[in-house]
């Protein structure tokens, strides 16, 4: 009851409306300010100085106390300013394995003529990333969120906060950006040996490219296997080129859900499949992935690795039952 009320109150106070797409502008209503512990200590010290000044009738003591008090008030404005009117947009997050930390990229744009210093982005308020945002620039930072389980990870509420300039007050804004990160299943270790490749009758379809005979170079494309990059040429500053091979494709490697012992749980199976995908990619093999209700076609390279792992990450057990 109490926590429900509190949630309701927070929802109202902090204007929590669920993830927002597009750019968030930090208007006044979105920024909250409270004194830090140091701020409270500062206030206590001012009280002490005020009492001392009254007791000893120290005119300069009064002046100092009031000057510092006024500075304390000013620093509220300054701290507010450090966040005010920032434009915030979510970026993409690179996929991670379960158990690692997902880093959600957030772009902070300062459109004004006031540089912002020491702006921090955090998810759990224990760890944070600090950035400075000079005038009229966009700076990217990232919030680390532990990815505990495979699937699509949404960071939920991120906090952008600052204590600049004096550390006496703490200004923050809650960001509910529409962000997500694909979390791959944690690969099993050690994994089972790779299954034996199937010799496919339809190998003719693979005639154009293969793994065996070197046939030339072409410009590097994202997703090409690093094994096929001509590193020697790259070292000679000739740019990234990918070696191409021709000839018959190697026997097809199918990483099949059904190859795994039926006694294994769903997650365990996914974990082993993830290990296979990685191993197959590392050895430079072409591979396909068969899951109940989903098949990833035969291919090789980094892009194929990502396709495979993503299929595993987003695998719905409900589909398996059908």
């Amino acid at each position, binding site marked *: 009851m109490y926590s429900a009320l509190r949630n309701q109150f927070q929802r109202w106070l902090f204007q929590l409306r669920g993830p927002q797409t597009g750019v968030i502008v930090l208007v006044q209503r979105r920024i909250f300010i409270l004194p830090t512990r140091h701020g409270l200590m500062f206030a206590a010290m001012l009280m002490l100085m005020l009492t001392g000044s009254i007791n000893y009738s120290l005119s300069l003591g009064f002046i100092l106390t009031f000057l510092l008090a006024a500075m304390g008030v000013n*620093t509220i404005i300054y701290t507010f*300013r450090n966040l005010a009117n920032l434009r915030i947009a979510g970026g993409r997050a690179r996929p991670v394995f379960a158990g690692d930390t997902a880093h959600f990229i957030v772009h902070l744009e300062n*459109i004004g003529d006031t540089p912002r210093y020491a702006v921090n982005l955090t998810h759990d308020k224990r760890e944070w990333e600090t950035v400075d945002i000079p005038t009229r620039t966009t700076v990217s930072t990232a919030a680390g969120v532990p990815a505990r389980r495979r699937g699509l990870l949404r960071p939920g509420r991120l906090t952008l906060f600052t204590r600049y300039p004096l550390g006496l007050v703490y200004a923050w804004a809650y960001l509910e950006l529409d962000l997500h990160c694909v979390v791959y299943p944690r690969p099993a270790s050690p994994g089972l040996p790779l299954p034996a490749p199937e010799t496919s009758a339809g190998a003719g379809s693979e005639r154009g490219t293969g793994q065996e005979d070197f046939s030339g170079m072409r410009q590097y494309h994202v997703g090409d296997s690093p094994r096929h990059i001509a590193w020697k040429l790259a070292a000679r500053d000739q740019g990234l080129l990918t070696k191409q091979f021709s000839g018959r494709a190697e026997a097809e490697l199918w990483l099949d859900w059904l190859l795994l012992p039926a006694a294994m749980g769903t997650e365990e199976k996914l974990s082993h499949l993830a290990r296979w995908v990685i191993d197959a990619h590392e050895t430079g093999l072409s591979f396909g992935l068969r899951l109940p209700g989903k098949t990833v076609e035969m291919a090789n390279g980094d892009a194929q690795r990502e396709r495979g792992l993503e299929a595993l990450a987003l695998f719905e057990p409900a589909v398996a039952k059908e």
Partner: protein
Amino acid sequence: MIDPRQPLALHHVLWLLLSLALITAPHASRLPWWIVALVVTLGAWRAYIAYGRHALPNRWLLFLIVIVATIGIYLNYRTIFGRDAGVALLVVMLGLKLLEMRSLRDAMLLIFLGYFLVITNFLYSQTILTGLYMLACVWIITAAMMSLHYGRDEPPFGRQLRVGGVLLAQSIPLMLVLFLLFPRVSGPLWGLPQDAYSGVSGLSDTMTPGSLSNLSLSDAVAFRVRFDSDIPPPKQRYWRGPVMWDFDGQTWFAARFIYGSPSFTKTGNPITYDVTLEPHNKRWLFALDLPARAVPQSATGADFQIRSFSPVNNRMRYEMASFLDYSYGTDENSMALHRALQLPAGFNPRAVQLARTLRQKFPDDRMLVREVLAMFRKQNFFYTLYPPLLGQHSVDEFLFNSRRGFCEHYASAFAVLMRAAGIPSRIVTGYLGGEVNELGDYLIVRQADAHAWTEVWFADVGWLRVDPTAAVSPLRVEAGISAAIPRSDPLPMLVRGDFKVLRQLRFTWDLMANTWNQWVLGYTPERQRQLLIGMGIDDATWYTLTVVMVALAGLIVVILAAFILRRLKARAHDPVRKAYFQFCDKLQRKGLPRAADEGPVDYARRLERARPDLALPVGGITQLYVMLRYGAETSNSALNELRHQVKQFSA
């Protein structure tokens, strides 16, 4: 932001050390040498640790130093409370805390301690110089505090100083409102430690040979006076202070209690003036002979000695009126007259004998007084700041042997002779003279002007001022102490005042100090009330004060916020875009906003469809804009044409 747990960078430590050193430096002269040495060592040690990235010392070692230092302070001051010992303790703690400073959290604590140490300096001095120096210290330490809260690209300290200076400067308006309007209470709130006001000098309630001549060595200001009319001539500037009634053979004592009420017969018009009295930790208030106005929170007795209800611990300002021609005390009561004749038995037998002889020779009181003054004048009496020390029969030794004395010797000897001859007499201490500051047109009275004279009572005229010093050294009365004292006697430089340029400088400085005193240091609850009356608030209560203060403070914060937050939005620097945006704003107000993905030409086309009546101006403006922004057109005339058309445009 630096992680609060992260160790501090070298430059942070060094800046902090520097600012704390600057703040503590003025205490150095007041602290025992070993504390200064200890704290300097601790500071240097911390700098060495920061420089070489060494480990901080063991906590137990620091704890041991705390114990030893506390014992040391106790042995030195015989207490660990009170002002001096408290400051000593605070300074030692500061030094030790430096060696515990690991992270931002500790650094913040030290900065707060630094601010607090600034205020302890004001316990000892609140001059303009101290104020300016401490302002500089606050500036630096604030910048140091700011430097702790930068992120990765921390600007150089010079720039941080500038930002800190701006922050402090922007705090001044609010500070002024708080200073002027914060409801003031007169301190102290609780008992002050005994040493709170030590070191302030002034007239005491007793007088022994030597007490005034000691005071005369101080060029400290006793009070300043601003006259509403002309400043009276030097020989009329007798500033009445404690009146001494009782003599024990060595020492004269002021009356402990006030008796009777002031009554006098005036002649002539009063002169009015106001006095700004420096704190002297006694109750005396000073006024020209003869004071004729009551001062709030004080009482005046029949001997016209004004006593404040509480010791004057703050600079205090009061208005006063005096009659320079007067007579009073013809109806003096017999108890008082009896008291004014008492002499201790067994002291100064020769003086008593002399008085009796004179009495036989001169039955008339006035003749007798004249005779004694003539004796001082004709016989070989000297006026000097450095009289020889006197023994038990001080008056005898002075009258018959040494014959060298300062005003208290003459006053004392004269009063004893009068009393022995049966003429009621008493001693009045106070100040004589004062120096006119032509720049500010006010009078400065210094401790060096301290003086003692006597009053004798005649049945027909009452109490009459007789200044025996005047008989010996008329110059003292006419021209002040520096003229009366032999050249060989050292006097404080400010009192002597020989050089003209120096004198001018000194007057300028004193004028500034006086203004400072009046408006900064002398800003009392009384002044606050006057200020509010000036603002049209006659009955200022705490409530009204608070309301006015909060309202003004709120106003200032709003203005300041508007100023500080002024540059957050993107500004169109390009005049072409600025004009075009104005055009778009006008249309937006009419419900025809430009879509985010819409170029100017598309927008114009849509507008022409929606509002065919606007087709002409919209087309013109868009064409101009496109030409100026994307085309080769750069002329000012085209820009002006665009501006003009936008201005004329109305949807």
